Each structure stands twice: as C-alpha cells, then as structure tokens.
C-alpha cells in the first residue's frame, strides 16, 4: 500500500515540473492569445476586455470600406500564400543542400564526424541579427557578390540580390539549414553501409541505390528535418524584415505589425491562431497517413 502511494508521489514529482512548465509557458499564453483574438480592438493599442467580436477573423478575408460596407480582399491571403511558398522553397533548397551534406558527413571516418557536426552548428554561436546583417553586406548592390562580379567584368549593373524574395530565401536557408542536416545525418549514420553494397551487388547503380535503399531508410530524418525547417520558416520575422526590405512581408512580419504600428492586437492574435491551425492540420494529416510508405514501391 505504502509502496503504491510512494510510487504515485514520485510520479507526481517526476511529471510535475514538466507539467507546470507546459501549462505556464504554453497553455496559458495560447489561451490568452485565443481570448484576445475575439476581443474588440482598442485603437490606442491593446483590447477592450470583455466585448466579444469575430471582427479579427472576418478582417482576414474582408475589408471594411469607409462607408462601412464590406468587400472581399485577398491581401492577407497573399501574404500567407507567400509565406508558404517561401517556406516550401527554403525547405526544398535546404533538403537539396542538406542531404548531400549529411551523406558526406555520415560517410566520413568516425573520428571526423564529431568535428563536422560541430561545424554545422557553428553559426548558432553567433546572434541571428548579426548573421542576417552580414547577409546584407554580402548581397547589397555594392556588396561582396556584386562587387566581385563587377570587378571580374561579368556584370556592369549590380544584380538585384537584396530586398526581394530571393534574399529572404537565401537568409532563411542559411538560418535553418542545420535543422535539416542534423536529423538526416542522424538517420544516415545509423544506415548499414552493407545495405548499399548489397544494392550495388544486385545491379543497382548509384542513383538507384540512393532511390531504393538510402532514401527510404533515411526518410524519418528527411521528414523530421523538413518539418524542423518549414515550421520556423513560416513564422520567421527577422529575416524577411531585414533581407526582404519591408517589401517581402511574411506572416511573422504581419503579426508583428499588428502589435506594433497597426495597433490591432485582436487581428494579430487571430493571425497567430490561423497559422497554428494550419500547422496543426498539416501535422494531423502527416500523423494519420498510411503508417509505412514503402509498401507501394514494389
């Protein structure tokens, strides 16, 4: 009896801290955000507590004209679409760069691998703002790249590398690439290389060994890496702000603006809720998909 209650006590003690952290740091802020998103806006900033209205959600697709009529507007949807597009691009580019990198790392002698992993995480030791500013130096009209190309005589006019979607994609890829490399590296490192030899032995050339053996077996790493890149990209704020030059707004910037200059807290909170809902739906679809993907490939 006492043994059982002791076990119950230790269970509470073990789970307790994590439970408190999750409640205080996740559930409470989320609930607060959901609550704010259905309040009436206070034009001076903040909200008028207690006056419920779906205005913030309506505003997402409909515009209230001066004469109080309401008309359809896709401005915000466009920003969301652009966010998805840029995030998808970033994920694809990260995968294209990250997979070969991870493969290279995983096939080095064991004593080198630790060093390589450290090198991949090296950018994290520098501040995100500093890293984004240095990209400005590299990409701007008279920056490193344009300067070099002009000096080489390849171009006479500077290429428009900064303050556009390209710059944002570059910056996001740079920021989140390690999140792609590390999970893929982990799954590739576990891969038994004799399986690749077996594929070669059974007449699979390099590409087909990659496609039929290496890729399916590193799929968990690829999925994890893609999720780890895509999701923070979608909500990114600093990179589009600095490298997009204020022209390439993403959801993060839009939300930031609502709590800042636009002073529309409910709308900002509603945008946050929408983003969360979209991501949750995506995750749910992934979690409920057919458990194993290889079945169809035979």
């Amino acid at each position: 009896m006492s043994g059982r209650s002791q076990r119950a006590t230790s269970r509470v003690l073990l789970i307790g801290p994590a439970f408190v952290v999750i409640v205080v740091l996740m559930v409470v802020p989320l609930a607060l955000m959901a609550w704010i998103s259905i309040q009436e806006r206070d034009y001076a900033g903040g909200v008028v507590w207690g006056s419920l209205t779906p205005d913030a959600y309506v505003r997402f697709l409909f515009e209230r004209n001066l004469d109080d009529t309401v008309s359809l507007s896709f401005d915000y949807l466009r920003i969301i679409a652009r966010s998805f597009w840029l995030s998808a691009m970033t994920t694809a580019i990260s995968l294209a760069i990250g997979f070969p990198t991870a493969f290279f790392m995983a096939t080095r002698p064991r004593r080198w691998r630790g060093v390589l992993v450290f090198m991949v995480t090296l950018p994290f030791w520098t501040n995100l703002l500093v890293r984004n500013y240095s990209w400005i130096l590299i990409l701007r009209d008279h920056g490193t790249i344009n300067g070099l190309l002009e000096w080489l005589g390849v171009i006479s006019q500077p290429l428009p590398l900064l303050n556009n979607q390209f710059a944002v994609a570059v910056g996001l890829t740079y920021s989140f690439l390690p999140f792609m490399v590390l999970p893929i590296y982990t799954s590739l490192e576990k891969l038994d290389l004799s399986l690749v030899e077996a594929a070669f032995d059974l007449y699979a050339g390099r590409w087909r060994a990659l496609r039929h053996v290496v890729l399916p077996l590193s799929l968990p790493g690829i999925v994890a890496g893609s999720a780890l890149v895509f999701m923070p990209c979608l909500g990114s704020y600093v990179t589009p702000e600095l490298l997009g030059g204020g022209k390439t707004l993403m959801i993060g910037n839009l939300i930031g603006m609502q709590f800042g200059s636009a002073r529309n807290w409910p709308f900002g909170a509603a945008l946050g809720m929408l983003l969360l809902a979209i991501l949750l739906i995506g995750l749910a679809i992934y979690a409920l998909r057919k458990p194993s993907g290889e079945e169809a490939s035979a």
Partner: protein
Amino acid sequence: MRERSPERNPQENSQCTRTHDAAIDIRRVRKSFGTGANAFVALKEVSAAIRRGEFFTLLGPSGCGKTTLLRLIAGFDQPTSGDILLDGEDISQLAPFHRPVNTVFQNYALFPHMSVAQNIGFGLKMQGKSKAEIDDRVDAMLTLVQMQALKSRRTGEISGGQQQRVALARALAPAPKLLLLDEPLSALDLKLRKEMQIELKRLQNETGITFVFVTHDQEEALTMSDRIAVMDHGSILQIGTPREIYDHPKRRFVADFIGDINFIEATAVTDGGQAGARIPGHGFVRLEDDRTLADGETMTLAIRPERVEIVPSKALDHIDGPRNEATNELTGKLVNVVYHGTDTIYHFTLADGTVMRARTQNNRGFAPRFSVGDAIGWRVDPSAISIVEDAAA
C-alpha cells in the same frame, strides 16, 4: 546487356586447359589498405583458378584476408595490383553493379524496408525485368528455399535461418555466374548449420552456379567443398581437394589448421632412390612423398593421429633398427590414454620428448590394451606421412 549463363552449366571438360576452364581466374592479386608507413598488406600476390560449377572454399583463420578477397571479386574494392578474370574477361575495374556476381553477406544485409519477396526480386527489378518475369522468378526462388509461406513478411520478422535463406534466394534470383558466400552459416546454431550445409550443397547442385564460399570452420570446408584454398596472413598456402588438403598438407600451417596432427623433426635419407627419413633416437621410416630430397636435409614430418597404430612392443624385436623398410615401426613410451567416446587417444613420447598422439576407434568398446608408462611400438603407413614446409607464409 549482361550475358547470363544458363541455369545448369555443362559438365566440365577434362580435356580443357586449366585456365580455360576457370570461371574465375585470380592472377597475382595484391591488396593493401592505407598508404606510406600505415599501409597494411591484406593480400600478397594471391593466385587461384576457380573452375566452372565448382564449390570452392576459402578457409583460414580470422583476419587472413578471406573477406578482402571476396570483396575484390564482388567489386566493392579494387585490387592494388593484379587481375581478376571472369570467363576470360578482365573484370577488375568493373563496378559491382556491372558484374554478374552476387553475394550472400555475412550479416545477410537484407533490406529492412522491404518484404521477403521484394528482397528476392530486387536484383531482377534493377536489371529491368518485366513484372511478370520477376514474379515468376521470385516464386521459383521462394520454392527453392522453402519460404513461400513467409513471402510478405518483413525481413525483421523472420528467424536467423530464414533470413539466411532469403539472402541466398536474393543472390541466386538473378542467376549470377558466380555466387560469393561470406561465412553465411556462422550466425546459426549447430543443428541449423548442419541442415543449411546440406541445403547449400543441394542448391549448388540444382543451379550449377559456381560457389565461392568463405569459412573458418575446417569441418564445414571439408564436408562441403570440391576444392579448398587454405589462407593465412594474406596468402593462399595450398589449393586442393579436401582429401589432398587433409592427407597431403604441404605446409605446417595447413596441416595444423585442419584436423589434429603430429609433427616430427627428421633428417632426409636418400638411398637407392628410396625416400626416407631418420628420426633422431629412433630409426628409419619410409616416405612416399614425391618431393626430391637432399641427403641429410632436415625436415618436418606430419602424421594424422588416426593413421598411427599402436602395437605391443614385445612383438617388435626388430624395431628402431638401422633399417626397417617393411613395417615402418618405431617405439615410444605411453604417457596418457584419453577416452573420447567414439575413440581413444593415446599420448606417447619419442626419444627426444616429442609428444605424439594416436587415435583408435572404440568400435569394439573401450578396452585399452596398454597402460600408462608402458613401452609401446607404433606403426605408420608411408602414404600417411607428409613432408611439410615449415616456413611461415
């Protein structure tokens, strides 16, 4: 595209020259790993001609280079120098996926994300065979290795012996000219291992494919092989049929590695064309080894314990005489008698203290006629004495 040999190879033609006959011809192949001061020579000038349809075994202790040689034949590694010819064609520079050679890996290396049937069909699929053809062939292979019932299982959901069969079927499915097997039975328990040995022989007979089989189990090598290559420290020491290797080992290492054996230091006696040896403290024994000897040359004789016959010393007034060509009998002193169930091993010493063993079958029950401390006589047929080279590889 790749030529496939027919299922059943024509019977070997004994008129053919050895090299023409060879399915695979390994010519002075060297392999070293690393460079400079760190270089490690895993294979030193290895040559072997493996015949078509043969069950050829590489036998040797751990680390002697068996896997290294197999990997060179499969194409996973390139030889440092030397050539490997398959049916007369140099394949040393060919990528593994261009060689009509398949491997059964020591750890099986089955694809964990595929079913048993998908594993077996993988090679055919990569060769671009039609779906119908793949299905037919996979079915035939499943029948061959008696795995039809488990064809849709994942490879992680079947037993070790079953995995071994799948690995075998997967390697046989594309009908390779040559099948390489790297200690495929080492992970199995003794009973299953015996079963699979018989199974493997059956499969080899049925398919007629040339097998190159790696093992460090001498008994397995003796029972399964057409010919055996005994390896040590990156060299092949002797190639021969199991009987040749067992009865006429040419090197001390070969004699020692396979079965139990006695070594005696002796000096050569050549007299009237009769080859013989003088054993210090004893006398003269006749030899049948066809090696040419120089008079007085020191040499090592190797004699299997089961070829040594213990006889009562009383009957041997004439033994240890200056010459005893008729009987090849000598004396010894019995120091131990060990009962082994099916047979009894007598330990006796020679004049110089060399301990010898004689093995007799207990086919009439265990009734030792000699007791420890007795002076005994022992007899050995000249054909049972091998002269072995002492030099290390």
